[in-house]
């Protein structure tokens, strides 16, 4: 039996390894694969030898929870558990912060001014260590049993020792005083480290929970109630009750619940989420409609052909889910360093102890205890803990000032590596709304009079292109005239009479069908407009075309310059669109993009990102629609347009508030600057350690009898934190273009 289950409680990639290594040797378990980002485990097992409950109990033994039950149930239970975990983490963080701040103030500014200060600080530090920081010690203990270390070990070790040593000096200061040594306390380092690391974890968890909110929004596109015709009667049923082959009634404004085929009626449907095409598509008998799209005008009866998980919308949801869970979590730089740093520090402490014990002066046991403890305290990862989060925080703040919203710190950590950028056409390169680009009248026509008639006729029409024309005429202050009659001709256009004269507005087919002459001059113009991928509407008076109106989705003003700049930065640019070949080609040529693909379905966009990633490219994707959400989630860096859909913004790591492609190059520069700052910070975090640790161990003692004064040790630690902080703040004034 092979089954996938969710696992709650995994906090790092090594949790996954520990589950794997614990379950694998169990009798009856054939194979096991833990997916940490997805928080799930796939187990093949022989249920006759090891029942599922036993596996569940085994997982529980090592501190995790296997969620058993149906897919829907487990999802809910898992989400509830995750939400609870985030809430607990928040509580622990607030708790830690409340108690840490007074300790910090006391030790930094009020030292020696308050009676019983050490006792007060000890009392304040207790809840931080034993409630907020408890997890560090349990994880470090579990890891110790398997002889491995990570950031948690370093935190547990240094805070634990700093705390115990401080408690000893608070309770029994006489011990060191009698030997001529200062009994210093380090409560503030212990609690500040715990608070800072919890803060980092909280942000990380929050980013993770955003993933599911994007999916929840996608699911929200399914309507709750649906009107169906069952056995000849209209019935309101819930979404889950829809059957295949069922006849469903759609009123204007309704969300389409299933993929289906139109049986009766005509209407316009907003399909931008699937095709990216901004103009609603006309649907009539036999046309296919898709779940999640919106019926705009007119009523339809559709037959459900695909329901539930089979719909295109469900496929998009699944792809987004997969893309988000399969994204490799970048190994945290600090964690990596801690893996090497911890054993070295412990080794040094042991060596220090041994050397002092055997070679040190009397009382050798005192020195042998004091020096390794100073080594361990000096090694405190205070500055190390600050290095990444402070730089990211300043970087994110700077981005926000420029209208670049960075939701996912990982995006900022990756953006500087981008070498390939995929742009969605509609709404990203272009404005995403059809607008009148050209209005050309025959030289013999009285244009002002005709504009009024066009305005009147198009105001009556329900066609989306008519809306664009009306909007344009409004901007040039056109007045309306009373028309006598109006007839809409489905799929072709409309005709109307004004002052007993016949006017027709529509496409070329209408003109051909009604045998209307198109003057050569206008015909030439129309053809050239069509070659620019513009939609051409003809205006006829009696039997002659007197004007043409071109409608198109305009390229944003800043697009061309932005693309040029990105290309200069050495980034390869691709354009993808659900639009037809002609439009795609025209736009790509206009903005100078060589690589483009037309008629691309949502799933293909994501697949294309994957394909480029497989070639070893670091891919950024910029888009604005639901149809881009899979690709945005799949890309190394997803960039959503602020004017786009919420789902695109949730799926992407970066949102551009100005919807301006120029911001992409800025985001890349910002990422470069931020990463540089992080690396500098790590240098500052370590340089003090490198100098102070040997001194703390007593390296100078044989030379000049110098042993590190704990005050100086404390100062060195503060200096490294201050260096890191001020270096991060420098990023604020950096010029980003």
């Amino acid at each position, binding site marked *: 039996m092979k089954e996938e289950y969710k696992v709650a409680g995994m906090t790092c990639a090594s949790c996954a390894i520990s589950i794997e290594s614990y379950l694998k040797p169990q009798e009856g378990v054939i194979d096991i694969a833990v997916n940490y980002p997805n928080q799930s485990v796939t187990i093949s097992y022989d249920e006759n030898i090891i029942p599922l409950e036993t596996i569940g109990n085994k997982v529980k033994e090592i501190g995790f929870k296997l969620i058993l039950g149906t897919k829907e149930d487990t999802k809910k239970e898992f989400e509830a558990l995750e939400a609870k975990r985030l809430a607990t983490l928040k509580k622990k963080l607030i708790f830690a912060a409340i108690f840490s701040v007074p300790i910090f103030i006391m030790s930094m500014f009020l030292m020696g001014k308050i009676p019983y200060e050490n006792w007060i600080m000890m009392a304040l530090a207790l809840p931080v260590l034993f409630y907020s920081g408890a997890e560090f010690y349990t994880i470090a203990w579990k890891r110790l049993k398997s002889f491995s270390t990570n950031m948690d070990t370093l935190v547990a070790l240094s805070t634990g020792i700093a705390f115990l040593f401080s408690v000893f000096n608070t309770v029994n200061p006489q011990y060191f005083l009698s030997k001529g040594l200062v009994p210093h306390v380090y409560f503030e380092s212990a609690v500040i480290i715990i608070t800072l690391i919890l803060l980092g974890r909280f942000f990380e968890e929050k980013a993770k929970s955003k993933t599911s909110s994007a999916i929840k929004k996608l699911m929200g596109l399914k309507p709750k109630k649906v009107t169906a015709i069952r056995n*000849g009667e209209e019935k309101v049923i819930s979404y889950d009750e829809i*059957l295949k*082959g*069922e*006849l469903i009634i759609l009123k204007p404004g309704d969300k389409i619940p299933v993929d289906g085929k139109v049986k009766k009626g005509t209407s316009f449907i907003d399909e931008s989420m699937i095709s990216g095409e901004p103009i609603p598509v006309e649907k009539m008998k036999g046309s296919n409609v898709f779940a999640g799209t919106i019926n705009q005008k007119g009523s339809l009866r559709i*037959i459900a052909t695909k329901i539930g998980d089979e719909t295109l919308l469900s496929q998009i949801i699944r792809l987004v889910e997969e893309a988000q869970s399969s994204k490799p979590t970048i190994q945290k730089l600090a964690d990596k360093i801690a893996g090497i740093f911890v054993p070295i520090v412990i080794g040094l402490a042991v060596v220090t102890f041994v050397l002092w014990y055997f070679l040190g002066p009397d009382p050798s046991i005192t020195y042998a205890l004091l020096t390794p403890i100073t080594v361990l305290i000096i090694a405190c990862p205070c500055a190390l803990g600050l290095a990444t989060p402070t730089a990211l925080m300043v970087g994110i703040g700077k981005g926000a000032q420029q209208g670049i919203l960075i939701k996912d710190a990982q995006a900022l950590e990756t953006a500087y590596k981008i070498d390939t950028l995929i742009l969605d056409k509609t709404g990203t390169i272009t404005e995403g709304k059809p607008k009148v680009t050209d209005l050309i009248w025959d030289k013999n026509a009285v244009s002002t009079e005709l504009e009024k008639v066009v305005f009147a006729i198009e105001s009556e029409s329900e066609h989306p292109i008519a809306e664009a024309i009306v909007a344009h005429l409004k901007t040039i202050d056109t007045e309306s005239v009373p028309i006598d009659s109006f007839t809409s001709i489905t799929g072709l256009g409309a005709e109307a009479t004004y002052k007993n004269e016949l006017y027709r507005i529509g496409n070329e087919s209408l003109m051909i069908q009604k045998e209307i002459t198109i003057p050569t001059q206008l015909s030439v113009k129309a053809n050239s407009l069509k070659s620019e991928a513009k939609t051409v509407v003809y205006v006829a008076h009696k039997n002659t075309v007197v004007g043409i109106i071109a409608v198109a989705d305009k390229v944003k003003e800043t697009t061309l310059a932005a693309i040029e700049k990105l290309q200069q930065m050495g980034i390869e640019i691709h354009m993808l669109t659900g639009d037809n070949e002609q439009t795609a080609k025209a736009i790509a040529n206009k903005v100078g993009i060589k690589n483009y693909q037309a008629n691309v379905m949502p799933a293909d966009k994501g697949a294309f990102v994957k394909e480029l990633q497989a070639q070893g490219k670091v891919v950024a994707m910029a888009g604005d629609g639901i149809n881009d959400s899979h690709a945005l989630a799949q890309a190394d860096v997803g960039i959503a347009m602020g004017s786009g859909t919420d789902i695109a913004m949730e799926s992407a790591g970066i949102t551009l508030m100005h919807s301006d492609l120029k911001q992409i190059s800025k985001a890349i520069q910002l990422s470069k600057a931020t990463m540089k700052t992080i690396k500098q910070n790590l240098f500052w975090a370590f340089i003090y350690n490198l100098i102070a640790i040997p001194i703390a161990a007593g390296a100078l003692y044989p030379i000049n009898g110098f042993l590190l004064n704990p005050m100086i040790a404390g100062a060195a630690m503060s200096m490294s934190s201050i260096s890191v902080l001020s270096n991060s703040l420098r990023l604020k004034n950096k010029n980003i273009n």
Partner: protein
Amino acid sequence: MTIVKYKTNIHCGSCIKSVTPVLNNLDNIDLWKVDLEHDDKILEVTIDDEDKNSVVEAVKSAGFEIEEIQ
């Protein structure tokens, strides 16, 4: 548009579920309804053209008996 009646053995809710897709998929019919209360389980269909036979074929393909009432 004509209304045609058929005698069938579509006798319960789940029978209706099985004929629903086949009847809805017929292009020439607009509305249909089975009177489950009636002894003869009368299927009443509004047909756009004269092709009454397509209904018979469709219902038979779903595994039911059907016979037009003259």
